[in-house]
């Protein structure tokens, strides 16, 4: 929303320097995006939050400035309608459930021409193109007061009948700027006896617009239903200043004043005379409402004691007419402040004008919760897992969850079995990743030109299930390396599992790829089995006996089987590890340990014999004879 300082000054005598004013307005909720200095003016650009339709008007912004600076607001003149000397025939058939208020009047004998210079200049300053005096005035008054207005050419309304109804859908409508639309179902429209002449709340019709030959106009100031306007504007992907105001909730009590202002300007710049009574068809009175503020509750929620008279001053500066009654401050909310409905809303009004940056800061005093929160996540475990990978030389990446159809196809995954976004930002980011492998392979290739040694991992969510009923979001821990071989990758995962207390062979998580090794672990599954309990085992009091056994066995005998078999031979075998492998010989390092006494040579040789006997029987393995050379 653009607001020239010169225009704001019509309603409020602001004295703050523009930068300071901008800072102060941002603090109270009127986000100042830009302050543009021009030759003769300063233009503010504001970001308006969805709850404040009133700030989509220069007067609304002036009201905020008045509240911030403690100034009085000066309203534009709003003369009563002159009595009509004649009344032209006109009929309105409206449905108050879809069009809560319909205010309008006819002016006859106008002279359509260019707007006066001051009016054109003001519109240009807020990026509006001047068209003719009637269109410009309706536009100008909308920006000034915040109620959208539309002027119809009275003579082009067939039989001078207006019928407000909902579109059936697919009707063709040509807007005043010459563009045609197929209307969505339930768009609010006005018809005359033959055609659609208005797309309510969004755009006027070409067939009833005000052009140079227009002599008589019907000016309509409506209150439209926010949801109906929003649905239609979304379906058409068509936004206008008017639709932005209506979908936020227009000032329903402001239609008459808006019409007064508009009529006054039309009579002044285009001549003519009032040619009807005032039409004002409405579903309710739309009068101001009361909201009570309990000052104790205010102080309790804000955490500070704002003196009562200060609270009153603030509410007064916002035109909320505060009155002290028994235990309450009763406020009367002007109809342009649709956002003020509850006590909390008033508390915010007091707090923001008091100034958030004037508040002290406190630390919450309540009890620290002890019970475990639902959806608890233990970051310590994740951190440890990541640290083990980091220590092993892997660097962490974060990649997008969304990927393309061809990404999946290249990985031989059927897209129809993967969760899909209906309205992707682009085809590149359409499917939810069912694996981390695709992105890791891409990351790997991306690094190849710059690095010989690449170790990467990601711990992130994947989305499993071929449709939404079967959806499962789980964490995968995956990595890729062209440095580590299978045994090293296996060892890293073994080390990770050791920390997590998981007894599982990691082999199934590892696969060889073209120029390296890849692993992918369902981390969420692993977390279910985690056992972090560690119990210290006292150091043995007696020395171990260490021995290396060189075993000759054929290639198809698995090392894992040999180790298990050796271990099974005696409870005194504490550790068995593969020390060395050369041709057919595998050397195992064996630690014998008795916890109660010293081991004798005899103890060990008996076990050794048992080992060799079993290995011989099961695997045709034998002890390597010392070379006799």
């Amino acid at each position, binding site marked *: 929303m653009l607001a020239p300082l010169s225009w704001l000054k019509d309603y409020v005598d602001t004295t703050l320097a523009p930068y300071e004013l901008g800072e102060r307005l941002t603090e*109270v909720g009127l986000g100042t995006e830009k302050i543009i200095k021009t030759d003769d003016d300063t233009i503010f650009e504001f970001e308006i939050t969805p709850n404040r339709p009133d700030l989509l008007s220069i007067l609304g912004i002036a009201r905020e400035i008045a509240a911030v600076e403690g100034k009085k607001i000066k309203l534009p003149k709003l003369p009563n309608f002159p009595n009509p000397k004649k009344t032209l025939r006109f009929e309105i058939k409206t449905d108050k459930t879809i069009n809560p208020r319909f205010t309008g009047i006819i002016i006859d004998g106008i002279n359509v021409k260019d707007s006066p210079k001051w009016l054109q200049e003001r519109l240009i300053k807020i990026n509006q193109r001047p068209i003719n005096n009637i269109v410009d005035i309706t536009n100008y008054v909308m920006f000034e007061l915040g109620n959208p207005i539309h002027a119809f050419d009275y003579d082009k309304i067939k039989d001078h009948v207006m019928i407000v109804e909902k579109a059936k859908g697919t009707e063709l409508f040509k807007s005043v700027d010459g563009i045609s639309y197929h209307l969505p179902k339930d768009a609010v429209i006005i018809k005359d006896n033959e055609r659609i002449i208005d797309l309510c709340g969004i755009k006027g019709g070409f067939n009833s617009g005000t052009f140079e030959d227009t002599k008589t106009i019907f000016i309509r100031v409506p209150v439209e239903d926010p949801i109906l306007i929003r649905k239609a504007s979304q379906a058409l992907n068509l936004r206008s200043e008017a639709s932005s105001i209506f979908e936020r909730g227009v000032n329903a009590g402001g239609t008459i004043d808006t019409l007064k202002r508009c009529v006054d300007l039309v009579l002044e710049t285009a001549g003519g005379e009032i040619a009807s009574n005032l039409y004002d068809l409405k579903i309710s009175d739309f009068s101001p409402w009361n909201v009570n503020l309990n000052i104790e509750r205010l102080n309790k929620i804000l955490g500070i004691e704002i003196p009562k008279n200060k609270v009153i001053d603030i509410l007064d500066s916002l035109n909320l007419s505060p009155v002290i009654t028994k235990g309450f401050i009763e406020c009367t909310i002007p109809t342009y402040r649709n956002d003020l409905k509850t006590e*909390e809303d008033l508390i*915010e009004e007091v707090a923001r004008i008091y100034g958030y940056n004037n508040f002290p800061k406190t630390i919450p005093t309540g009890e620290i919760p002890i019970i475990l929160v639902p959806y608890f996540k233990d970051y310590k475990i994740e951190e440890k897992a990541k640290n083990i990978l*980091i220590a092993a030389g892997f660097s962490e990446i974060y990649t997008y*969850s969304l990927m393309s159809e061809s990404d999946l196809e290249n990985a031989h995954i059927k897209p129809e079995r993967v969760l899909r976004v209906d309205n992707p930002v682009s085809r590149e980011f359409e499917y*939810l990743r069912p694996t981390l492998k695709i992105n890791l392979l891409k990351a790997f290739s991306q690094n190849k030109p710059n690095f010989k040694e690449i170790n990467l991992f990601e711990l992130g969510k994947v*989305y499993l299930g071929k449709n939404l009923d079967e959806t499962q*979001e789980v964490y995968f821990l995956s990595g890729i390396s062209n440095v580590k071989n299978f045994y090293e990758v296996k060892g890293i995962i073994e080390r990770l599992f050791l920390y997590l207390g998981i007894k599982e062979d990691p082999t199934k998580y590892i696969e060889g790829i073209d120029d390296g090794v890849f692993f992918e672990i369902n981390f969420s599954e692993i977390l279910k089995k985690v056992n972090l309990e560690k119990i210290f085992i006292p150091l043995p009091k007696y020395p171990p006996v260490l021995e290396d056994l060189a075993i000759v066995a054929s290639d198809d005998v698995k090392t894992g089987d040999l180790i298990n078999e050796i271990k099974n031979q005696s409870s005194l075998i504490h550790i068995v590890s593969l020390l060395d492998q050369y041709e057919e010989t595998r050397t195992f390092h064996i630690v014998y340990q008795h916890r109660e006494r010293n081991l004798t040579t005899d103890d060990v040789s008996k076990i050794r014999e048992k080992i060799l006997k079993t290995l011989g029987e099961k695997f045709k393995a034998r002890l390597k004879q010392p070379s006799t050379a």
Partner: protein
Amino acid sequence: MEEKLIAIKNSALSIILDTSDKKTLEEIKLQFLGRNGQLTLAIKEIAKLPKERRPEIGVLANEVKKAIEQTLENQKLIIKKFESETKKEQIDTTAPGIQPKIGHLHPMTQVIYEVVDVFKSIGFQTADGPEIETDYYNFEALNIPKHHPARDTQQTLYLDTQNSKVTPGEAILRTQTSAMQGRVMEKIKPPIRVIVPGKNFRYEQVDASHSFEFWQVEGFLVDEQVRLTDLFGTIDYVLRKLMGEGTKLKFATTNFPFVEPGVDTYIECTVCKGKARLPNGQGCSFCKQSGWSEIMPAGMIHPYVLSAAGYNPKELSGFAFAIGLSRLVTLKYQMDDLRLLTNPDLRILEQF
């Protein structure tokens, strides 16, 4: 004579073994084996011995000589080795060290862990919620009914509901971690202190400061006597811990349907230090030349949200906030493009 030779040997060996430089070793050699050396003189005396004893003593003398010579040689080697070792310690210390090949933790992770730690220090636990979310938790439970204009600021990615029982439009990718407010509150009674780091999705084209995927840390506290000043104090504490004691903050009013009053938090730009201009005179693009970065929208939880979760808003109150985590990471490390966070280039990762 025998005693004399053995005495010479013992004295020679003990002196030699005590010696640690080559020069002294040469002197010792002269002292024992030189023309006038002790052993040389002693050998000369062998001639004076009776003839029958000469061979026996001669052999002994030779052994003593050999022993001395060998010990001298050994000691020379030891000294040499020692010297070369000492020399090694004096090699070029300006050369870089050999670093172990350990990997790098992503900056996002590092910041998440810091955030988790800081909040833990004031009693907040950490939760993790679904990214595939329902319209209810993401919007409606947060006082954003269908067709509310606030939905415009959170353009939503909808999931394909074909072949499922889900109503079209009901399954979305969450647009905000605030979706976890309803999920957590409806399961437990206050006091609640929880943060939820996580990924969110919005229909937004990718550029330097926008993405269809971004990270937030949602947080909320619900209890019997929660005050707006508690929210200000918590934000202040957390951002100072995360961004440094000298961090400058300012608060402003804003509107989100699920908070009332609504608060926005700005942090002084880490790049231009709030000056809006860079030392070279150019405008700071990092903060859009404002000197401030929006970092943490927040507010007192709206009574509607408390009611929707089954709480009585007359008895309970709370505050909620969302830290723009992606933004926090880029601010902390002065990274000028959000896309750097999803770029797996090791040249980026190795800097952390």
